[in-house]
């Protein structure tokens, strides 16, 4: 079974709020000083799913792709250290500041270029922007079904059977292959790489493809061609005040509180 896993490198979600800054004029997140970016936490779960499906099928290949800066190689290396077979980095200045639609198109072009692929696995969302739309865009571009937020995936005779996580329960769906499935944290803990595999992964070369390698022209990339222009980027200001409600008895305190809340039109 040939599987492609898409992984992304993101700013560490554990970055303390005080270190998280944006450049409002440039509309960019300023990388936090001394805090290295990490693999999007859902992506190792997608890699784990790919490795288990490959094992269950008794063979095949797991290829990892990531669109991002040079440092995104680390996200690919992580998947290789877990046991994935090959890695491709989509890296080009033309990819700077592109939006979800352009990202989806570039990933779809890479998946086509790789060719033989039964299944594409992705994280349910990336924990930086948390939109979860890129997988749908890839599905659209490739014209294949997308099953989102999986907690279990099983290969069947005709395709895949996927257990999806809903707000109020689970849903089991089947899809023909090729398909795209996004994997959720309910899938279970991804494996931690073995030192031996870390060493093997370090020796593997990650191929690098540019926009031109993917056949993407100037009109398909670049911040100027965003489908979804970024109007403004800012950290919302949260102000909090503390007021101690006085009163001689609990009842009086409650009455005073209720009056305050009503005056503030909160109740």
């Amino acid at each position, binding site marked *: 079974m040939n599987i492609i896993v898409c992984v992304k490198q993101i700013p560490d979600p554990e970055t*303390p709020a*005080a270190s998280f800054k944006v450049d409002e004029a440039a509309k960019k997140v300023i990388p936090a000083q*001394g805090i*290295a970016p990490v693999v999007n936490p859902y992506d190792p779960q997608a890699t784990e799913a790919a490795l288990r499906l490959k094992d269950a099928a008794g063979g095949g290949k797991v290829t990892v792709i990531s669109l991002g800066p040079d440092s995104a190689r*680390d996200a690919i*290396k*992580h998947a290789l*250290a877990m046991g994935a077979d090959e890695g491709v980095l989509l890296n080009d200045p033309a990819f700077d500041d592109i939006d979800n639609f352009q990202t989806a198109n570039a990933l779809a072009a890479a998946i086509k270029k790789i060719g033989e692929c039964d299944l594409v696995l992705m994280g349910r969302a990336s924990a930086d922007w948390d939109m979860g739309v890129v997988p749908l865009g890839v599905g659209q571009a490739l014209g294949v079904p997308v099953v989102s937020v999986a907690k279990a995936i099983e290969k069947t005779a005709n395709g895949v059977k996927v257990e999806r996580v809903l707000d109020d329960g689970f849903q089991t769906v089947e899809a023909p292959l090729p398909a795209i499935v996004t994997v959720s944290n309910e899938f279970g803990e991804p494996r*931690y*790489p*073995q*030192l*031996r595999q*870390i*060493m093997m*992964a*370090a*020796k593997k070369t990650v191929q690098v493809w540019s926009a031109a390698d993917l056949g993407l022209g100037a009109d398909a990339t670049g911040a100027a061609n965003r489908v979804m222009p970024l109007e403004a980027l800012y950290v919302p200001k949260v102000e909090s005040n503390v007021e101690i409600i006085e009163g001689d008895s609990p009842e009086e305190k409650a009455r005073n509180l209720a009056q305050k809340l009503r005056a503030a039109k909160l109740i």
Partner: protein
Amino acid sequence: MDFEPTEAQQQIRTQAKALAGRFDDAYWRKCDQAHEFPWEFYEAFADAGWLGIAMPEEYGGAGLGITEASILLEEVSASGAAMNGATALHLTIFGLNPVVRHGTEELKQRILPDAAAGRLHVAFGITEPTAGLDTPSITTFARRDGDRFIVSGQKVWTSKAKESSKVLLLARTTKIEECAKRTDGMTLFLADLDPKYVTIREIEKLGRHAVDSNEVFYDDLPVDARDVVGEVGRGFYHLIDGLNPERILIAAEALGTGRVALAKAAAYAKDRVVFGRPIGQNQGIQFPLADSYAKLKAAELMIRKAAWLYDTGQPCGAEANMAKYLASEWGFEAADRSLQTHGGFGYAKEFDVERYWREVRVMRIAPVTQEMVLNFIGQHELGLPRSY
């Protein structure tokens, strides 16, 4: 000159950090308070094959160098695991170095794969209450009895003895007064910590409570002759072969602990507002932290150099000693400044810096004291007369 880490070294750093990151400060606070060996942490590293990082591949290890092992232990300490985490691993990582270098093939086959897989725990029994740093004056004695030795004596500070089934034990096989040189006549054994002949008594200590240190009494413990490591009578020399890598790794652990203490201090100094400004805006707070940052970076360079010399087969005694000296001096200083930066909260367990402070303090004493390092530098680097 090339300061660039290799791809593999970079990956080791990233992955060691990720795995250690699964165990947060709350985990270590709990292990420390409960005096509980960090089994879950230990097993996670054992299962992923990290314990054998510097052991040869033919015995189940990864065959990497002290550079890689130092990166691992630095990241483990810097995760907040500090010495509780580092000691749990490092006894396996470098404690068995004399076996790797001097053990018979049979002994290596019998011991190393189990140790690398984390199934076999081996403690390190050198220090004695009456000998102190003057190792040749140890009195624990192993007398020959056919094809075995019978060991009697007392060791102190043997760490992890309670969890270990074996101990790498240094004993005299010839009395000091009968030796041509006082460093002759000692033998290294890989002995069983058999409760029938061995009594272990835990020492109450300042910190690093997750890993016990003990007084260990040996009462006619039989040790098979095939468990002699290296040559009979040459134990001291076999032991000092392993001292340089040990010093480098200890230095890396002090560096990691200093790093986490300093990072906590910087974060706190940014957040904590007193007199209407973040405390880190005061130079009285900011300068010591900046000074520690520079010192830790310098210690790191000495560690890298010492490790590189060792891994490329060059003499590294001076560098390994200086790395240990600088990293433990400045690692402790960083922890102390972090504690001061936190004010009263630094004294509270909840903020963890007091734990780093307690743990990194030991590196100025063990496995060798700062004074003995200065003795070494004075004598061997400066050519001054030996002072002891």
